[in-house]
Every structure is written in C-alpha cells, then in structure tokens.
C-alpha cells in the first residue's frame, strides 16, 4: 500500500541507516532553504503558543472576581454567601480584597490594579503578573455559533452551540475553535499547519507538541493534505520515551539483529489502516526519541530547570518540558530551529461538583488547582525570562466551560461563558478584556428589572451567555502567530458572525454587547 503516511515515514527515515539512526542532520541544509523562504512572510523570528487546558470546567468566576463594594456584594449573594468553614460550608464566595480576616472564612482576594477586580487568594502569582502588565484576563468567553441572547436562545432564532454543558463536546468546540461539532482537528494544529515549518525541516520535530497525551487541539491538515499530529512527550528529564533493549548502536550482534527485525516490522506497509498507523507512530518515535533527548539534555544548552525552582505539580512539570523544548527550538543556532510551535499542557480535576471548597486555610479542592496553576504559570514566565524568550511565547488558558454561580450544596455544575487568561511578554496585560458580567442570578435583557447589556445575561443558576466567542479568542492568538486574514477565515469559518455591523447584527438593539470586537480582541496581543 503506497499511502502518503508511509511515504512520509520513509522520507523522514531517509537519512537513517537501519542500525544507526541520527543521520537526519545531514539533510538539514536543504530544508533550511525551505524554511527561510516561508519564514520571510511571517512577523518575528520564533513564536510559540502554549495552551494550558483546565480540564473539567474551571469555576473561573472564583478566579477573577468583582471587587467594587456593590458588585462584590452581588457576587456574595449569588454564590450563596461567603464560604465559612464554621457555618456556611455551602457558600462559595471569597471575601473582598482588603477585608479583615474572619474566623472560618477564606483569606481576602488579592486586588488587581484599578481596584475593580480581584484574584482568588490562592492564586496571588497571577495577580502579580497582572499587575506587572504581563497577564490579561478575558471575560465571558465561550462557545458560540453566532451572537445569542436569552431571547434568541429561547425562541431558537439564533443557532446554539451543539451540546452545551457537556464536557467532551464543549472541550471539542474549544479545541476546534469553531462550533462545528464534527471537526476532527484543532485550531492549534490548523494554525501550525498554516504558518509553521514542517517537521521535515525542523529535525523531525513537528510544530505541534503535547506534554499531555493526544490532543485534538493540535491536530491539523498540512497544505498538501497530509495530517499534522502532535509529538507527544513526557515530563521526564529525557522527555521522549526511548525504546530499551534494542539499541541500534549496541555492538552485540544480537541486539542489532533484533533491532533490524523490529525496524522491518515497523516499516512494513500494511493494508490495514490501524496496523499502518501504529507502525507510523512507532517509526516516528524510533527515529526521533534518542536524537531529541540528546538535544534537550545536552549540557551545553544549560540547566534542565532553566534556573527556575519549579513547583511540585504535574502542570509545572509539563510546563518545564515546554520551556526546555522552546530553548532547543528557538533561534538559528538551536537544534530544532523552528519558526512556530504550538504546545498543549493539561491540568485536570476542575469538575468540582463536590467539595469545591472544603477548607478556609488549606489549599484543597478548587483552591489546590488554582494554587498549582498560579505557581506553575509564574514559574513558566520566569523560565521564559531566563532564556530571554518572554516576548516570543504566549501562554493562555482554555476550559470546557465555567460553572454555575450558585451552589449545589458543596460544589457547582456545568455552565457556559467563562474567564480565561493570556500571559507573556507580548500580552498587553493589566487589563480585563471583554465584559465581566454582573454576578446575579437570572440576569436578563428586556425582563422586568432589566439589566444593562454590559451586565450580561445568564440562566437562573448563573450560567452566563458568552459575550466573546472562542473563535475570537483563538483568532487573536492565531493572528499573533502570523496567520493572515484569509487563513483565519478558513480556520475559523464562523468568525465573520462576530463582526459588528454585519447583516442581521447591524441592529444594535438586537445585538448582544460582544460584536464590538472584530476578528480579534483588540489590543490583547501586540503585532
């Protein structure tokens, strides 16, 4: 069977002898020509995006909370009162920044510059980054097909995203960057396929790299039709897992004989697509793992921790591997010499139906997650500083959805619009982009006691209707990576639905207050 995956694999292995793989570098000069031609049309030298996925649906209304006296009071009411370990264990609210400490209550939130907002007390590092203008929040972003209000949701005159409130479906939409539910690819993969040098010219390392297993976010299709799928790495010091006991360079003839047989089995074309695919994956891994590990652990590239005291969490370990990969990928003298890379890391556990807050003082439940997130993001920023890559790398969060404002007794259920953050040197930080809604249940335009448009609409448990589409959020990142306007329209086919003044949305009164954003969120990222 001569299919393209087979030919791709053979191509990658063209420089490898059967027994000693490592000859790819000999092919690099000609690839560099391709690289410089492509890179010429893109801004900057190297750029990378790091997607931090918060699996399970982060209760982001408790990450960034309102801090004016009036808005905070509404928030407290809507969240069933201030949490108190002694007498209100079902309450979810965090005390306002600057409040005096009260027995049984959580520590006060950390105020952000401007005083309008505050950050959860277990995530002070994020507040610091914000106040240093290196981190921005984006408020009330979520999956949308087109602008929608409660009225147009109810009368079905506007399309709803498919399968709202369902974990896997909403995750898929966030990864796809568009509410086309059958999409098998992700916007990270698609943008990399558009602007990044292919793996063939970056020492075999594809421009999409996951430190958390397979991720649909990183799947794409290259211009020639070939699939782009992520290299999956671990958090070990040698992050590409190597095959043991088959050393291609072991002098023992029997090692060599078994290695040769293995390569025959792996490289054999199979008429069965599952068998073929498994061989392709193993082939890539055999080709790349030892070489990549040698690059990344070369003492000449520097300390494996990049001078950072990494916190002890899975997320921090994943981001450490990302930082190490960036170090060997960035710049013409680097081993990989990539122009664009997209990384995926994942922190699970956010599906806090239960025990969301179970201690006022200890970082348990949701607070443990926020603490790990905050510390890991701070460490990653520090690492980027230490290798002077801060302006070339933007990290951002995504999550299935936010959660209901009110409590189910000890936790929260699935909701919709959410707060996300974007951080890095290219971010115009210290700002909350978008419109942070008023935290009261059952906000509704046009109802008695109607709320103003900027106060946001929600269903009765505080499931906010998004006022920024995932598409806009993602396109902002994609454009920074160098995706041009026409390619944006391909990757995000619904993007035009969110432009102000277009078609049915020209009527301002019928338009929810998000269409004021264009294709991207203005000002969030530099050019």
């Amino acid at each position: 069977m001569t299919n393209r995956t087979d030919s791709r694999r053979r191509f990658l292995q063209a420089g490898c002898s059967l027994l000693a793989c490592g000859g790819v570098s000999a092919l690099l000069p000609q690839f560099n020509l391709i690289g410089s031609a492509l890179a010429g049309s893109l801004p900057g030298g190297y750029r990378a995006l790091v997607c931090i996925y918060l699996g399970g649906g982060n209760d982001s209304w408790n990450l960034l909370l309102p801090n004016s006296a009036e808005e905070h009071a509404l928030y407290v009411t809507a969240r069933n009162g201030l949490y108190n370990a002694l007498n209100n264990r079902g309450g979810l609210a965090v005390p306002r920044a600057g409040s005096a400490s009260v027995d049984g209550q959580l520590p006060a939130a950390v105020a952000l510059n401007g005083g309008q907002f505050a950050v959860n007390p277990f995530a002070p590092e994020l507040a610091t980054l914000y106040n240093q203008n290196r981190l921005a929040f984006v408020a009330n972003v979520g999956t949308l097909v087109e602008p929608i209000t409660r009225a147009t949701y109810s009368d079905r005159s506007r399309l709803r995203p498919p399968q709202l409130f369902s974990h896997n479906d909403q995750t898929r939409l966030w990864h796809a960057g568009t509410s086309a539910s059958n999409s098998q690819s992700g916007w990270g993969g698609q943008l990399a396929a558009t602007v990044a040098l292919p793996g063939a010219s970056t020492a075999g390392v594809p421009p999409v790299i996951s430190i958390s297993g397979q991720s649909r976010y990183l799947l794409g299709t290259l211009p020639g039709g070939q699939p782009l799928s992520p290299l999956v790495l671990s958090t070990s010091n040698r992050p590409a897992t190597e095959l043991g006991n088959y050393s291609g360079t072991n002098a023992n003839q029997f090692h060599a004989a078994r290695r040769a047989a293995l390569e025959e089995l792996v490289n054999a074309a199979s008429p069965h697509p599952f068998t073929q695919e498994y061989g392709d994956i193993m082939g890539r891994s055999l080709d790349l793992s030892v070489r990549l590990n040698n690059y990344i652990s070369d003492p000449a590239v520097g300390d494996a921790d990049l001078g950072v005291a990494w916190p002890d969490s899975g997320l921090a370990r994943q981001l450490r591997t990302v930082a190490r990969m960036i170090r060997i990928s960035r710049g013409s003298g680097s081993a990989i010499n990539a122009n664009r890379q997209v990384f995926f890391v994942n922190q699970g556990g956010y599906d806090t139906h239960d025990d969301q807050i179970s201690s006022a003082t200890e970082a348990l439940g949701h607070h443990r997650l926020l603490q790990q997130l905050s510390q890991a993001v701070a460490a990653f920023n520090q690492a980027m500083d230490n290798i002077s890559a801060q302006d070339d790398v933007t990290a951002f969060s995504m999550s299935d959805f936010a959660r209901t404002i009110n409590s189910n007794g000890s936790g929260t259920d699935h909701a919709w619009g959410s707060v996300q953050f974007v951080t890095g040197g290219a971010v115009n930080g210290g700002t909350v982009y978008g419109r942070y809604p008023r935290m009261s249940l059952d906000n509704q335009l046009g109802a008695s006691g109607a709320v103003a448009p900027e106060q946001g609409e929600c269903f009765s448990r505080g499931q906010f209707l998004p006022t920024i589409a995932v598409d806009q959020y993602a396109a902002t990142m994609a454009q920074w990576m160098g995706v041009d306007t026409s390619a944006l329209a391909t990757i995000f086919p619904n993007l035009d639905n969110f432009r102000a003044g277009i078609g049915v949305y020209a009527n301002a009164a019928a338009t929810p207050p998000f269409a004021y954003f264009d294709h991207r969120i203005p000002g969030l990222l530099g050019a």
Partner: protein
Amino acid sequence: MTSRLLLAPLLLLLCSAAGAQSLFSDSFEPMFDRPDDAEAARFLNTASFGATRQEINRIRATGVYSWIHRQFALPPTLARPFMESLAVSENLAGRSIGQTQRVQRWVDTAVTAPDQLRQRVAFALGQLIVVSDRADSLSGEAIMMAEWNDLLVRNAFGNYRTLLGQASRSPMMANYLTYLRNRKFELTPQCARNTVGTPVSCTSSSAAQPPVIVAYQLPSGGARVPDENYARELMQLFTIGLIERNLDFSPILVDGQPVSTYTQEMIVTLARVLTGFAYSCSGDRQVQGRTISRTCAVNPTSFPGTPGRLVINGRSDLVHPDLYEPMTCVPRFHDTGRDRVGFQLPGMEASAPVGAQIQLGAGETIPGGTPAASKPLELAGSVMLTLAEVSPGLARTDALNCDSGTLTTAQYAQCRQYCDNSLDAALDLLFAEPNTAVMVSRHLIQRLVSSNPSPQYIERVAQVFVDNGAGVRGDLKAVVYAVLQDVEARRPLAQGGFAIGSGRTVEPLLKPLQLWRSIGAVSGDTDANGYRRWARTTGPCSPGNWPQCAYQQRPLGAESVFNFFEPDYAQPGAISDLDLVSPEFQIINENTTMLVANDLYAQICSGWGSSNNCHGALVSPVPGDRAHFPAQALDALPGGNCGTSCSAAQDAALIGELDILLLGGSMSGAIGNLADPGAAANHGMRGTLFRLLREGISGSMGQAEAQDARRREILYLLHLIAVSPEFNTRR
C-alpha cells in the same frame, strides 16, 4: 477471489432476512461452529483475555456455541469477598491494602479465572458505565471499587435495566458522580396574615386568618439545587446519548440536522428525581466473622452518617457493608415534584411524565410534599404553588407530608417507596428509549469485536437488545451472544475478515494480559491468602501506578467518566480519511508506544537472567512477587524444545504457533522456503521472524543449558510480536 467477494453480501442478506434470533441456529452455525485452530484462537481473543491451547482444543472438540454456553453457566469470580478476606489477613500482618491490591486481583482474575467471557464483558461494561478510582472520594476505597467490579461481573449476563438500577443505587456511582446525599431544592415561604404585615409562621392553623405566602426566602445556608452530574451522564453516556439515532446508529435527521435527545431542562428535572439517596443504615453487621457496628435512627430525617470501618491492628481496611451496598432514600430530601414541568424524552407519550411527577395522575395516595412550597427557578412556565397545595391541584390536607419528622413507620415506608418509584420510573423510561439499545450494542461491539461495525451489524445486535426472542428487552446474555456470533464477527479471515476497516485496535492493557494468559505465565506468589501479583514494575512504573504508567489504562480507573478514550475518536490521516473511527488510538502516541514496549519487555523477561533482561536462564528461586514465564511453558510450544539445534521446520512451527495464539492466524506473509531464509517466498511478518530465527536471534551466550538459548529466543520473539504493529490490530 470472485467467490469471496460474493459470499459476504450474500451472508449479510440472508442474515437480515433470517432475523437476529435465528442467526446461527441453522445454516450458519455449522459453518463457523467448528473452526480451525487459528479461527478458534481468533474467536477466543475477542471472547476472553487471550486464547490458550487448552481452550482452542476445547472449541475444536465441542464447538463455539457450546463454549459460549458453558461460559454463560460458570459462576462469577468475584473480587470484593476476596478483598475483605485480604484486608483482614493483611491488617493482621501489619499491612494495609489499597487499589494496588485490587488491580492485582483483577489481573489475576483476567489471566486465570474460568469465567473469561463474563470478566471480559464486565470489563467492557465498566468502560460504558464508568466509575473510576481516580476520584478522590474513591481512591482510598479498594473494597468499594472491588464491589463495583462485582456489580458489573454479576450483571454481565443479566439485564441492562437491572444493571442501571443497581448502578444508580450504588454508593460507588453516587460518590463518583456526586449525587450521594443530593438534596432537593427548597425555598422557605414567608407568610403573613394579610398581604401586608408582620411575617407569621406558614404553618399557622388559624381558620379565621389563614396565612398567605407573601414571599419566598432561601433557607439558611444558601440555596441548594440538585447536583446535575449524574443526571447528565446517565443520559449522555449510560443510556440514550446525545442525538436521536436509528437502530443502525445512523443519526435521525430533521431538516438535515441531528435531533438532540434531551434538553438542559430535562437534566434539571432528572437531577431532581435523583435526590434523597444516601448510604443505607442496616445496623451492626458481620463481615469476615467480625462485627462492625453502626447506629441507626428510626425513620431518619437527616442523612445517615458515613458507614464506619473496623480497626484491626491499627489499620482499618475492612468497611461496613453499608458503604457499598445499595443506597436508600431519605424522603425528607427527595424532590416530590411540585412543579408543572414534566420530564419527557422525545418519542415518548406526553401522558407518561416521569420521575417525581410519575404518580401525580394516579398515585395521589403518596404524593409527598410539604407546606414549604418550592419550585426550581430554572423551569420556565412552572407556577408557584399556593400554600394549600403540595402538588398542583392536590390539597395539603389530603397529602402525606414526607418532610414531617413524625411519620409512622408505615408512612415512612410509603414515602420511601415514592422515592424509589420515582427513580425506577425515570430509569424505565431511559431504558425503554430506542437509543439505549443502539448505544449499548455499539459499545459492546466496539469493545469486543470491531471499531467500525457496519450499520447492519449494529442493528442486528440492537434488535436483540430490544427483544431477545422471548419478549425481553435488555437481556445482555442474548446481546453478548449476538455480538460474538454475528456473521461480521465470525466471518473467517480467509473469507473477508481481512477487509480494510474490520477489527479493532487492541486496548493497550490487554497486551500483557494476553501474553501472560496465552503463553502460560504464572505468578510466583505462594501466600496462603491467595493473593497473586503479576506485574513487574520498573522504570516509570511503580506498583501503585501500574498499569496506567505504561498502558494509559487501569481497570476501573479511567481518567474521567468519558472512559480511557472516546468511541468516535478518529486518528487523523489515513484512518479518518477512510471515515473510520479508532477509539484506542486516542491513547496511542510516540510516547505510549515506547512505554508499552518497555513495560512488555519487563513483563516478558521477568525472572530471566540476573537482571530480568532475558540474557540468562530463569533465576532460582523464581521471583516471589510477580509473574514469570516458566521454562515448561516455553518448552511446550511447538518448536520450543530444540535447544541450539533447531531446524528450519521447528522455527516455522514456533512462529506458526505464536501466530495462532497471539494473532489468531492473521500474521502477514508466509514462510515458503525453509531451505533459504532470504528467499522471496519468506515474506511479510512471518518471513521477517523466520529470517531472524534462522540467522540467530540471541546466540548461546554461554548458557549452561543449551535449551536456555531456545527459551531466550522464544522470549525475544514474544517481545517482537508484542510490540509489532500487527499485534496492535485484532481482526
């Protein structure tokens, strides 16, 4: 070639005409019932954790039909009683037990238990109705998880409705999907004697000036609304799925669009049905001959506490059975449906509302309810009740108040019955939905036989789910039979079973299990308590994180309720270009293929050589804490006992046997020229392995016993096959 192409459609045609029940009763059964060795092994690799020579011979002697029915009749091998016994013996010895022991017991059962088909189906069901020990509330509860395992094992050949009922009342599920002690939503009414004035108690009974509700107030402690977690996953994953489907799994389209099976409103309503359930309180109990005490209130108006544990020697792994036995309802917290919004699923009669409202029309005798009128805020169109009503149109004075703290035992039982009826009514409705038959059938086909079954195959199995031939819906024994004996599962490789897109990817965890079982590994554990460990842990794997460290799977230990992988995951590239799905590929990547390969090496070489590297003889004594392949098992293989003087025919025989046992005869290529290993007639995987054996795979390396050289060759050969792309596909 022509005849093969004609045969398949013909078989399909005949099958659909014959109807599901009589599929193999006449003309087809003889064709498939007495397969050759390879086809018998291929069948066993779907219906068990690995073909063995003994089972192949049994099928050759008595047939597939007989084998399946013997499996149906075998008693279930259970985990929880064993774990309770182990808890006592380990605690007495000053050790604790945990999930590690449960997982090792599961491996021991998978590899050695006689009731292979039951265990295999239970493993598949556990990936549909997911409870995982990764949840904080269950990670420390090995006995609860063992009982969850047993619940699946006991019901594997039972009825799906029974399984749904037991799962929904299981404290394991309630912990996992967070509806343990789920409470109804309540608002406290504020009353006045007139429309203005000082609030008074709403229960005031002054006839002259009856109280009037003037406002509602959240109860102290904040609003509690029922947790929606289980309501959602019960519908999305365990029964009806997200969109309406035909019996062949194709979506039902209206105006070209799929139709959702449920709305958020239905989830809210179902969540209300699922209120009130908590741990039972059965008083003192005997477990393993020891008493575990528990104090219970009569007719409780609060949830019973968490069942306790018995402290033995300072450790406390033995738990009160209430911790894992079916929950009961505390009616005080069960929503009695005091709103006017029904819970309905598409396709059902409007006159059959479910859940809390189920008895509102006919069952006025036990409507429940309290004077504290309430309604969920979310349900548009619902009308506030008047103080005089407990249900729409039903006066408070006529009703039994299940919130009351002074119910007689008979009344309490009535209230509890109401709660149970609500749940059963909801489950009945979900079970009766046509989609449930499709979703369960497709899942079992995907886990046992094929990732991409034809629509006809799904429909044939779903028809059996709908009616087992005796008018019974949801008979899993009949469904399993239909899955295994379908023409699409049993069509011999030589007659089209090799078709592109046929078969499935092996779940990674099944690889070591199959090697151990098919090649006859044994555990070196000899402890009298019967606890036998299998895995050797090395590299990234510790005893606590094996097997997910390598295989990304762990029995009853999925990352989330969405299982280890999604049923519709399609690997990009050739697979998705062919419109195929490949669920298992979601956990197969550059990293995991190598982790699996390295762990398989650790398992295969366990005990061989001074450092478990296969470079020497089996150590003596054999490792006492894990499995190894005994010399006799290797020597017994055809071509396995020829030392350093093996002939080409013996090498070919060895490869042939491993092909049958491990690949069901599907290994590619041929060994067509024994005299010249390099000849073109030796090609494909068989040719590669043959050349390797002929040209020297390991040499003698100074073995004291020449036969150890052959054993080492066999182990190396096993590993090459185990990591090969072909071993990853089952057809």
